[in-house]
């Protein structure tokens, strides 16, 4: 119902503020995109029963949140949005994979539970990295970065256009749903498919009208099929290169060396 529109609108508003500040925000978007992708690939490359070796990867979201000043609570909240689906699919693992894998005293963990915990950890890590990317990067510089990384221009322009109009259309949808709610009797009136069709059809007609107006306005301002952006990107080797190198190196070490084991051995002494 309208609740989901409200929630999504506030999620968008929260993101487009891009509250991240300082060093992380001023990094070249290409460096951040590449580091995020390397992170996700490294995290997902472990075997399905791996849990402890995923833990060193938590340093990246923790450090990014720490450096940019994005509150961990907000990142956590976002990662929870993806949780229901992950839980739903993940819970089949304990059901199907019942081979005992690990025993701690009286507690026996089956392979299914280990892989379930692994899925939760992967989900948390991958989503928090993506969330931090958008929390610390303006959408237009993100798009500019994507273009420089080889994304076709038409697609980048499409992303920029989409971004500009999403909030507008979500508010339009919210107004329609609210008007429907006010006209209906009873609590939380449901929208029947028939009403939905005419509602969506109307929204679509308004959309097409708006597209026409937008197009004419853009033509009047000299639009020729491309959005030109004035802010050039500059990839500084000492700043962005270092960022890329340090995190890439760290992910590689985490992937190749069993850090938690190493840490435990070091802490436990000889």
């Amino acid at each position, binding site marked *: 119902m309208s609740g989901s529109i409200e929630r999504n609108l506030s999620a968008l508003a929260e993101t487009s503020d891009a509250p991240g500040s300082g060093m992380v925000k001023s990094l070249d978007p290409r460096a951040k995109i590449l580091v995020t992708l390397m992170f996700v690939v490294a995290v997902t490359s472990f*075997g399905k029963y791996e849990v402890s070796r995923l833990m060193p990867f938590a340093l990246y979201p923790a*450090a990014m949140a720490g450096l940019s000043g994005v509150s961990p609570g907000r990142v956590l909240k976002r990662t929870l949005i993806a949780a229901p689906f992950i839980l739903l699919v993940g819970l089949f693992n304990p059901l199907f994979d019942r081979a*005992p894998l*690990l025993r701690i005293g009286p507690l026996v963990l089956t392979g299914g539970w280990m892989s379930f915990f692994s899925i939760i950890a992967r989900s948390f890590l991958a989503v928090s990295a993506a969330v931090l990317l958008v929390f610390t990067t303006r959408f237009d510089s993100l798009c500019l970065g994507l273009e420089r990384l080889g994304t076709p221009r038409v697609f980048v322009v499409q992303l920029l256009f*989409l971004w500009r109009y*999403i909030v507008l259309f979500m508010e339009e949808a919210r107004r329609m749903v609210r008007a429907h709610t006010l006209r209906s009797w009873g609590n939380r009136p*449901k*929208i029947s498919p028939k009403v939905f069709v005419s509602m969506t059809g109307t929204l679509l007609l308004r959309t097409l009208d708006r597209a026409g107006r937008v197009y004419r306005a853009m033509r009047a301002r000299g639009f020729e099929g491309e959005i030109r952006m004035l802010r050039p990107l500059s990839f500084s080797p000492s700043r962005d290169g270092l960022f890329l190198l340090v995190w890439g190196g760290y992910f590689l070490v985490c992937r190749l060396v069993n850090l938690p084991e190493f840490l435990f051995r070091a802490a436990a002494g000889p």
Partner: protein
Amino acid sequence: MHMADALISPEVGGAMWAVTAGLVAWSAKKLKEDPDEGRIPLMGVLGAFIFAAQMINFSIPATGSSGHLGGGMILAALLGPYAAFLTLASVLVVQALFFADGGLLALGCNIFNMGFFTCFVAYPLIYRLIAGTGRNRNRILAASVLSSAAALQLGAFSVVLQTVASGISALPFGTFVLLMQPIHLAIGIVEGFVTAGVILFVLKARPEVLEAAGDRTRLRGVSLRTVLAGLAAAAVLTGGVLSWFASAYPDGLEWSIAKTTGSEELASPGEGIHSTLAGLQEKTAILPDYGFRAGSGDDGAAEASEEAAWPNPDMGTTVSGLAGGAMTLALAGLIGFALRRSAGARK
């Protein structure tokens, strides 16, 4: 139907990224060959429209549940396959980035599953063939329902294949198929009726809109041949990448990395005891990292022999793994906290 990063492997995700990147580049090229400046703002606002429409939930009669529009077929009918594919892809990118709906590595899978089958298979081969360019209500209805159902069936099956190929979820292929296909058949039929409703609404209110769209959606170059070529490329790439990994690293990446770094791995279980547990032993081969305790809990004899064959060091390894993992996590949190403090102090 949005897949998450937690459930896919880099090989599957990477292969689908490559296929999808190719499709995006191809669609972009096709649009460039057919310049229509008015289409660019149209794609932008229609993407935003799909976004907004997806957030309006409607009740599904006689079920008590509610659903929402997917909207892919409406886009294809208004924009043609190439522009619709790019628009759907852009919607999925924004969903992945801002709503944690689908992962970044899984983005290739998601764009392929929802965009490719809708725009390049179901639209040209089903919708367009049945609906034609006429205004026959029944034909539009049949075309919408059949094409939406087909697109969702193919997409859902593709989700199953990608998930099973990734091997993170333990859901067996058969069970997963039985879970996914019927649900998505129902969703597809509802989607089809709603799609037909919206298209017919527009046709009734403003027929010229669809006529203009008809010009725009003239099919250039989408034929069965290109569709099959796209599918074949996807299959070859995925299969090729997977088999390459499979042959290069018989026991997963773990194995080869352990070999190259020479890190301490568990000794493989003794052969004799495990003869009765051959099935489980197969599993131990792909779990080189953990103190794997083969043998079911209720089998006392197996337990006893397990104890003998499995001395304490294994337990040490698993405990050290868990404790070390917890320590690392705490350390990561502490470093993040310290960075936050120092960043705050600098401000």
